[in-house]
């Protein structure tokens, strides 16, 4: 039992160091130029061990993405649950939406997610499945979380009935155009100083039409 536990711990810590080395290597070289043998060396494991954990470069890359976004996806999904952001008659919607957007942006900028996203986009022509999975796993899931909040607010009559799927695209688009896309094109771009003003302006636009 103790031995089994020990083995599992070793295996788990190898997996973690492979993921870490993989992430660093992909960020440095992009997907096509990254080499599995080099990643194994940087993780201080044999290539055989690496392949035992991840059967291909594609699978390893997908795991790196999932790990990065698993964290923030988790945070975000959690955050959009009604038990975290309590939605009731007394909820200040402006503040709540601001908190959600702020959390998303912090995660996106602080976890190096922009750099990973850039790699995913770069590989669309060569490894289309990774890009599609990422799109489904991260972007669609996040959008679905926000849609749920809007739908709940409509039920509670805190917002006017509207096409919330469309609405999510609108507000996500406004936020991304200002913050994410400049960062995708320039690795040095960070969050601007007036981020809060921008977020509130987008929210106020949304509430001007759909608020009650």
């Amino acid at each position, binding site marked *: 039992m103790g031995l089994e536990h020990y083995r599992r711990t070793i295996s788990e810590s190898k997996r973690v160091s492979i993921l870490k080395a993989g992430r660093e290597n992909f960020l440095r070289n992009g997907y096509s130029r990254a080499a599995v043998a080099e990643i194994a060396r940087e993780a201080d494991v044999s290539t055989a061990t690496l392949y035992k954990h991840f059967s291909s470069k594609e699978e390893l890359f997908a795991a790196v993405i999932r790990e990065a976004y698993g964290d923030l996806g988790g945070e975000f999904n959690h955050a959009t649950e009604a038990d975290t952001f309590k939605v009731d008659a007394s909820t200040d919607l402006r503040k709540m939406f601001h908190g959600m957007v702020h959390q998303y942006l912090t995660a996106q900028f602080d976890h190096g997610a922009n750099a990973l996203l850039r790699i995913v*986009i770069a590989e669309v022509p060569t490894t289309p499945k990774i*890009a599609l999975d990422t799109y489904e796993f991260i972007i669609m899931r996040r959008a679905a979380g926000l849609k749920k909040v809007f739908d709940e607010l409509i039920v509670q009559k805190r917002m006017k009935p509207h096409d919330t799927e469309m609405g999510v*695209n*609108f507000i996500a688009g406004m936020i991304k155009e200002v913050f994410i896309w400049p960062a995708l*094109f320039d690795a040095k771009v960070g969050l601007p100083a007036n981020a809060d003003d921008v977020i509130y302006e987008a929210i106020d636009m949304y509430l001007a039409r759909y608020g009650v």
Partner: protein
Amino acid sequence: MQGLEKYRRTIVDNKRAAILKAARRIFLKCGYTRAGMTEIAGDADVSTATLYKHFGSKEELFAAVVTEAARFHRQEFATPPQYATLAEKFAASMRLVLLSYAQSDLHVLMRVVIAEVPFAPDVARSMYANMIDRWHKGVALLLDRLIEEGELRPHDTQLSSKFLAGMVKESFIWPGLFNANYAVPQNPEATIREMVELFLTRYAVERQVAASA
């Protein structure tokens, strides 16, 4: 003399156009780093010397390909057709933006550029400045004019132009960044009309008057 000069210029223009067309094709196929100037010249049926006479470097050539695509893109918003209402005018402009996006495959060019950010950062930065940011600024000028004309209330148009662009892109363009087989929806009309309403509810003077009446 004049005829000969004109003939020469036509030849030069034709070659330039052929180079741009070939370059675009090769960049889309190979990406920026792997695209070779010799291959582009061959594809355009000109000598490498001629290519370099027109474009001093691969970077310059790529910038020209992007500018060419963006020029077409910008024109569409700058000359909105005459429509009776502000909402119709905006909707028409957004439709044109969408159409030009779809036709010029800008998102494919963007994918090429985004891929190169770690390796050719200046190319990406200048594409953002030449294409995306210039488009924002052009639209902001247009919005400023609508404020002067009393149609929109005074607001930060540098920001609201980005909001407009973001709504169109998130709804129609960005899925194509991730999915090579994505096609712009056949009937974007309802979405376009709603995003225009969202924008005008916040910024149009007539909506403010109607709301307070």
